[in-house]
């Protein structure tokens, strides 16, 4: 067998643990410390461990919520269905949300799919260039001049049927986990970047929808007109205070 054909089979053996292991082993030297079969197993184990670790790094909260045994079970099933197709291991796990739709754990834990979506979005924002908005005084001037204002692009809108942020932060605070928590409620979130740190803020549905208007350049007068049924004057002040102190607006 030439090297090209051998490579193809070895890749299959390592990633799928297929039955051709004996065939591959016949091309490999036994050494006093490692038989050919054991050597292949070392690569199989390393492959599983490496990809599982990558998933654990991306989906830290899901790992915490599922626990080691169930997460590893999920990872094993995912790895056997979705090989890595990127040169960067950090990209691994993109299809997990889709995968969960047909996986038993996705049915057992209805919030899991949302958590996976949240954590993958977190990863995307983390790797995105921090888009810094304008200082408060500049925005005030733009509002006075009724220039179109819009949100920076290192930010995204998320909505879930569960209190995902509450579940997400459990990984950082073990004590809350001792008590049953109420998480079956809708949640509206903005995920954004400040000083290269990914942050989140939750809003009411109306506030969140009001903010969505500014994803496209909109003059302040038009914004007030379109948003008057969504937020009160006080809420409007709070929203603009939040946008200003986090430099999330441009014009």
């Amino acid at each position: 067998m030439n090297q090209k054909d051998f490579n193809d089979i070895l890749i299959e053996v390592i990633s799928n643990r297929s039955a051709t292991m004996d065939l591959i082993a016949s091309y490999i030297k036994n050494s006093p410390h490692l038989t050919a079969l054991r050597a292949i197993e070392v690569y199989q184990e390393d492959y599983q461990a490496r990809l599982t670790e990558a998933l654990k790094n991306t989906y830290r909260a899901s790992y915490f919520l599922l626990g080691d045994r169930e997460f590893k079970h999920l990872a094993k099933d995912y790895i056997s269905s979705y090989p890595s197709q990127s040169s960067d291991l950090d990209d691994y796990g993109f299809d997990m949300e889709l995968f969960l739709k047909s996986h038993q754990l996705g049915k057992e834990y209805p919030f899991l799919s949302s958590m996976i979506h949240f954590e993958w979005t977190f990863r995307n924002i983390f790797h995105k260039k921090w888009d810094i908005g304008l200082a408060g005084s500049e925005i005030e001037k733009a509002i006075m001049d009724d220039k179109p204002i819009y949100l920076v692009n290192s930010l995204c809108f998320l909505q879930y049927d569960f209190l995902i942020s509450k579940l997400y932060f459990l990984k950082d605070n073990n004590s809350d986990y001792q008590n049953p928590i109420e998480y079956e409620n809708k949640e509206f979130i903005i995920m954004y970047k400040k000083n290269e740190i990914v942050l989140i803020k939750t809003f009411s549905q109306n506030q969140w929808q009001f903010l969505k208007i500014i994803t496209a350049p909109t003059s302040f007068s038009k914004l007030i007109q379109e948003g008057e049924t969504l937020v009160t004057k006080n809420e409007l002040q709070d929203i603009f205070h939040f946008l200003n102190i986090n430099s999330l607006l441009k014009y």
Partner: protein
Amino acid sequence: MSVKQLINPANIFGVGLRSPHYSYLEQSPKTEVGWLEIISENYFRTKGKPRLVLENLRSQFPISCHGVSLSIASYEEFDLKYLHDLKMFYDEIDPFLISDHLCFTGKKLNNLHNLLPFAYNHENLHHLKNRIDQVQSILGRQLAFENLSAYFDYNSSSMTEWEFISELTKSTDCHLLLDLNNVFVNSHNHQFSPIDFLSMIDFNRVKEIHMAGYSIRENFYFDSHSNPLYPEVIALYESVLSKKKNIPVLFEWDENIPPFEVLEAQIIKLKTIWSKAID
């Protein structure tokens, strides 16, 4: 854009930059570490914090870029998008060295992220020569290739690893990244003398040395980068110093990464050995 930093001949010892050390290094501490090596794939496409940290650190430290996904020994076509992005990244970072491994890592649609060995024979020598010429031409730079820690060898190998490497570096004008831990791990697992390996190496081709601590599994050694240096690996470095003294040396730690000071302690140990050798 900061100015490229070059290796200080009086401090040739570096460490692998890993994210748990970002906040420590961002405080610009006084350090024994003379340069940093990064994993190219962890930085070349992100526009987030890792890239910002790298941009700041490269004004303070010389940078070496070490890749893990080139898959030079693969029989598939190169991923040209990957090479294009790498080239852009190297042009921006302007490292003092770029490197990858003598291995294949899987296929484009099934990247195992494993560093897999190939047979040391003329078929692969010819294949790798062509591939290295091609990639050096695309990137417009010479590369250094790292000798692998391999857990098996092929029945179809017709030469030793060191004969293969020696032939390859001669015929392609590429450099060698000599990993002493890998030499030692392989010498134990495959029963050869590490000194035989080192005696065949043209040290003018060696542009960087890697050192790390392996782990012991069952009765074989595993290249886990998870421990301080073992005396046997340090002895190999002493042997290298008797041949050439100014090759940049990297200490790497990748599993259960300890505080930066632990890595520095290893650097201090290596510096002491180096100082004695140059006296």
